C-alpha cells in the first residue's frame, strides 16, 4: 500500500482521494494548450484543517501540492508539472457571511463566481460583485489569486484590489489570517495592517487561500449594456479616456474579432450603464452617448448600436467552439490604454500568420489607468497542428506584450520566464528569499515562479 495514499485517505476519507488513472488523467490537464502532467494523487478536501494536514504530510514526504479552483486559468497554472497532489478545492463551497452594511462577503475557497452572483441576486439584490469574464464556475479565490478583473474593473480596479482579508494555509501548514479579521474584528478591510501581497499573483506557490473576504458594491435596479462602434482603432484610447472621465459607466470594453466577417476590422465597445431610476438612466445616457460620444456619431466616425437592459453574463466558453474544436487560450496582459491600436494590429497579424480567426479585447481598468488586453487563439483539440499553432501564437504574443511595455497577466511558464528575465534583480532576489522562507521544501505548485 502506498503510504502517502493511505495517509491522505486518513485525512479526507477514501472517497475524497484517488490515485486511479481516471482522476490522474483528468487532473493532469489544463483546458488550454499546456502539455499535461500527471499528479500522483487527486484530493478534494472539505476543511482548512484537512488542508493543513495534507500540507504537513506533503512536507514530510516532499510531495508537491498543486491547488486548483475552477481550473479555468487556461495558462496551465494548476498543471502538476512535477506530479504530487492535485488539490481540488471546490468542495469548500460555503458562503460564510454577507455583511450588508459594510458590503463584503466572506467565502470559502471553492465558492464559484456564479454561486456568489446567484446568492446575492436571491438574498441581497442591491449588492453585486465584480464578475470576471470567465465561465461562472471560476472561483472567487482562484480569481483573486491570479489578480483577476471583472465587470466592475472600470470603477473599482482589479478583483484582487477588492480583497478585505484572507485566510491562508502556509506551505508549512500553519494557518494565517490577514486584514482586520486577523485581530478578531470583522472581515471589512485589509488595511492598515501588513498587506496580503505575499499570496496574490503567486499562483498558489506561497500558500493556499482557504477563505476570502471580497468587497461587494451597489447593484442598481437597472443594469444594461450599450454598444458603440468605430472603424479607426486609433480612436479607442481617447474614447476610453473620455468615457472614464464621465464616471457614468460600470464596465468599458473594446473588442474586435474576425467572426462574423462583416464586423471584422471594426472596433466595438460594450459600455455598461446602471441606474436606480429611468431619470438617472436618461441622465447617464445623455452624458455618455450625446455629450461624450456624440461628436463621433455626428462626424460619422462612430455609431451607436443600441442599449439593451440586462447584462449578458459570460458565455466565453462559446469561444472554444469557433473552430469546432473545443479549445482556446489567450494571453492577457495589463497594458497602457494608449497601446490599444498597436495591440490590435500586431495581434491580428499574429492570428492571421497562424491561420487563426483573430479576437482581441481590451477591458478598461480604473479611470483608464490601464487595460487588460487579451489576444485569444482558438484551436481544435483533436488536431495537434492547430494546438501547436495556437501555442506558437501565444508565445509570440507574450513577447509582444512585453515589447509594448505591458505586463503579462497570469503568465504560463513561458511568460513567467520572460517576465523574470526582465525583473529587477533585487526584486527577483527578494521573491526568491520569500519563496525559500515560506516554502522551504519547495512543495507548492513547483514549476511556477521559480527563481533560479
Amino acid at each position: 500500500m502506498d503510504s502517502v495514499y493511505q495517509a491522505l485517505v486518513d485525512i479526507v476519507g477514501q472517497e475524497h482521494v484517488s490515485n486511479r488513472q481516471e482522476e490522474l488523467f483528468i487532473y493532469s490537464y489544463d483546458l488550454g494548450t499546456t502539455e499535461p502532467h500527471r499528479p500522483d494523487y487527486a484530493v478534494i478536501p472539505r476543511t482548512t484543517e484537512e488542508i493543513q494536514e495534507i500540507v504537513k504530510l506533503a512536507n514530510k514526504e516532499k510531495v508537491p501540492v498543486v491547488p486548483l479552483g475552477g481550473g479555468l486559468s487556461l495558462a496551465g497554472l494548476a498543471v502538476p508539472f512535477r506530479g504530487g497532489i492535485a488539490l481540488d478545492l471546490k468542495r469548500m463551497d460555503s458562503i460564510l457571511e454577507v455583511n450588508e452594511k459594510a458590503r463584503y462577503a466572506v467565502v470559502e475557497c471553492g465558492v464559484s463566481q456564479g454561486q456568489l452572483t446567484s446568492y446575492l441576486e436571491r438574498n441581497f439584490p442591491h449588492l453585486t460583485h465584480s464578475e470576471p469574464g470567465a465561465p461562472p464556475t471560476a472561483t472567487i479565490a482562484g480569481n483573486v489569486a491570479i489578480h483577476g478583473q471583472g465587470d466592475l474593473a472600470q470603477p473599482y480596479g482589479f478583483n484582487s484590489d477588492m480583497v478585505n482579508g484572507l485566510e491562508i494555509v502556509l506551505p508549512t501548514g500553519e494557518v494565517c489570517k490577514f486584514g482586520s479579521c486577523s485581530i478578531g474584528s470583522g472581515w471589512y478591510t485589509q488595511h492598515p495592517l501588513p498587506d496580503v501581497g505575499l499570496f496574490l499573483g503567486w499562483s498558489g506557490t506561497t500558500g493556499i487561500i482557504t477563505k476570502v473576504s471580497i468587497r461587494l458594491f451597489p447593484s442598481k435596479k437597472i443594469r444594461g449594456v450599450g454598444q458603440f462602434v468605430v472603424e479607426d482603432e486609433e480612436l479607442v484610447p481617447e474614447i476610453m479616456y473620455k468615457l472614464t472621465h464621465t464616471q457614468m459607466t460600470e464596465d468599458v470594453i473594446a473588442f474586435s474579432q474576425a467572426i462574423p466577417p462583416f464586423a471584422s476590422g471594426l472596433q466595438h465597445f460594450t459600455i455598461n450603464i446602471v441606474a436606480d431610476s429611468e431619470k438617472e438612466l436618461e441622465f447617464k445616457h445623455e452624458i455618455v452617448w450625446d455629450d461624450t460620444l456624440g461628436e463621433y456619431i455626428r462626424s460619422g466616425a462612430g455609431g451607436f448600436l443600441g442599449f439593451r437592459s440586462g447584462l449578458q453574463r459570460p458565455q466565453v466558453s462559446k469561444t472554444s467552439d469557433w473552430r469546432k474544436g473545443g479549445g482556446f487560450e489567450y494571453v492577457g496582459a495589463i497594458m497602457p490604454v494608449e497601446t490599444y491600436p498597436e495591440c490590435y494590429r500586431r495581434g491580428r497579424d499574429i492570428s492571421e500568420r497562424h491561420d487563426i480567426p483573430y479576437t482581441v479585447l481590451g477591458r478598461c481598468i480604473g479611470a483608464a489607468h490601464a487595460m487588460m488586453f487579451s489576444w485569444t487563439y482558438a484551436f481544435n483539440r483533436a488536431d495537434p497542428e492547430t494546438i501547436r499553432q495556437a501555442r506558437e501564437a501565444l508565445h509570440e504574443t507574450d513577447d509582444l506584450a512585453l515589447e509594448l511595455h505591458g505586463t503579462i497577466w497570469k503568465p504560463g511558464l513561458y511568460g513567467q520566464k520572460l517576465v523574470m528575465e526582465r525583473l529587477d534583480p533585487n526584486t527577483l532576489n527578494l521573491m526568491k528569499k520569500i519563496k525559500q522562507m515560506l516554502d522551504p521544501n519547495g512543495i507548492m505548485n513547483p514549476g511556477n515562479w521559480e527563481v533560479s
Partner: protein
Amino acid sequence: MTLTDYKYGDVIHRCFRCGYCKFPINWMDVNNCPAYARFRMETYSCGGRLWLTRAWLEGEIEWSDHLADILYSCTACKNCEVKCPLSFNIDILNMMIAAKGEMVERGEVPSPVKEFLENIQRQGNPYGTSRAKRGEWMEGTGIEAYQGQEFLYYVGCVGSYDTRGQETARILGKVLQKAGVSFGVLGNDENCDGNEVKNLGEETLFEMLAEENVAQFQGLGVQKIVTLSPHSYNTMKNDYPGFNGEFEVSHYTQLLQGLIRDGGLDVSGGYNATVTYHDPCFLGRWNEEYNAPRAVLKSTPGVQLVEMARNKDGALCCGGGGGNFYIDLLGGSADSPARRRVREACETGANVLAVACPNCLTMLEDAVKAEGLEDKLAVKDIAEIVGEACGIK
C-alpha cells in the same frame, strides 16, 4: 472500437469543460449533475466523463472497473444537455450512451448493470422476479385485462414489482376506475418498456423490447396508452415511433389534468398538506412537461404548493435514472442526490414531497429514511394524493 469508429468521434473533443453542465436553474451551485454532486471529483462531471471517454477510445487510458462506474454513474437526467451553451449540446447525452454501448459490446460493464440487463432479458424486469408475478400488483382491484378499451394502462417494471410502486399502480388504477376511464392492463403479459436498457447502452436488447412491445400493442389494437412511469412515457412517445409504433401516449398526470379540468374526476375531498413537487427527469427535461403535475396538485383542494429552489429544467435528479434505482452507483452517502433532494424539500417547509414517477418515489422515500426525516416529510405519488382527494382508501 477506436475513436474514429465511435459514432461521436468527430464531436466529442468539442467539450471545453467550462462547467455550465453542472448548474441548476441558475448558478446557485455546481451540484446539479447528480454524479458530480455525489462524488465531486472532476471525473464525475459531464465534461470529465466526455474527456475520459475520448481518452479511453484513443487508448490514453485503459478500461477499468472504475472507468465503467464513472460512466454508468450518469443518470441520463439531461441536465448537461439543457445547460450546455454550445451548439453540440444535443449530442452530449448520446455521446455518453454510445460510450456505455461500447462497454456493453465489449462485455465490460459494472456487475450490477450486467445483472440488470440479464434480468430483463430473462424475466422482462430488472429485479429478476418471474414474469408470472408481474400482474400480482392488480389482484383484488378489479382492474381488467386490456381487450380493446380506450386506454392501455402501462404500469412498467417498478410499478409492477416494487412494493411501493405496486401501491401507486393500484391507486392510479382505482382513480381511473372512479373517473370512469375505459382502460385495461397487460398483467403478466406486460414486458419492460426498455427506456433504461437504452440508456444503459444495450441497443440490441432495447430494439428487441421495443419491437416486441409495438407488435403486442398493435396486435391488441392499442391506440392510446397511459403510463404510470415517465420512463415508459418517454420511450413509448419518442422511441417507439421509430419502430412503427405510433400511439397516443400520455403520462397519467396529463390524463388526470384533463379529467379534473373537465369535471370527470371529483377531487373535492381535498388533501390538506403543504406540498413541494419534484420534477422527474423523463417527464421534465426529457419531455418538457412541467405543467400537468402542478396543475393536478393546484386543482386539489387543500394542497398548498411550494417550489424548491431547483425546479423544472433546473430540478436535481433523484439519482435513479440510467438504471441507478437498481444499480445504485450513487448511493451510500449524505451527498447522494436523493438525500440532497429530500433536504431541499424540507427547506421549503413542505410536509409532503410529491412525485410523479415510481422510480423517484422509491429513491426519495429511501432517502427520507436515511436522513431521519420520516416525522417531517412524507413522499407521495401524485396518484396517491389524487386518490385520497377523491375518497379512495
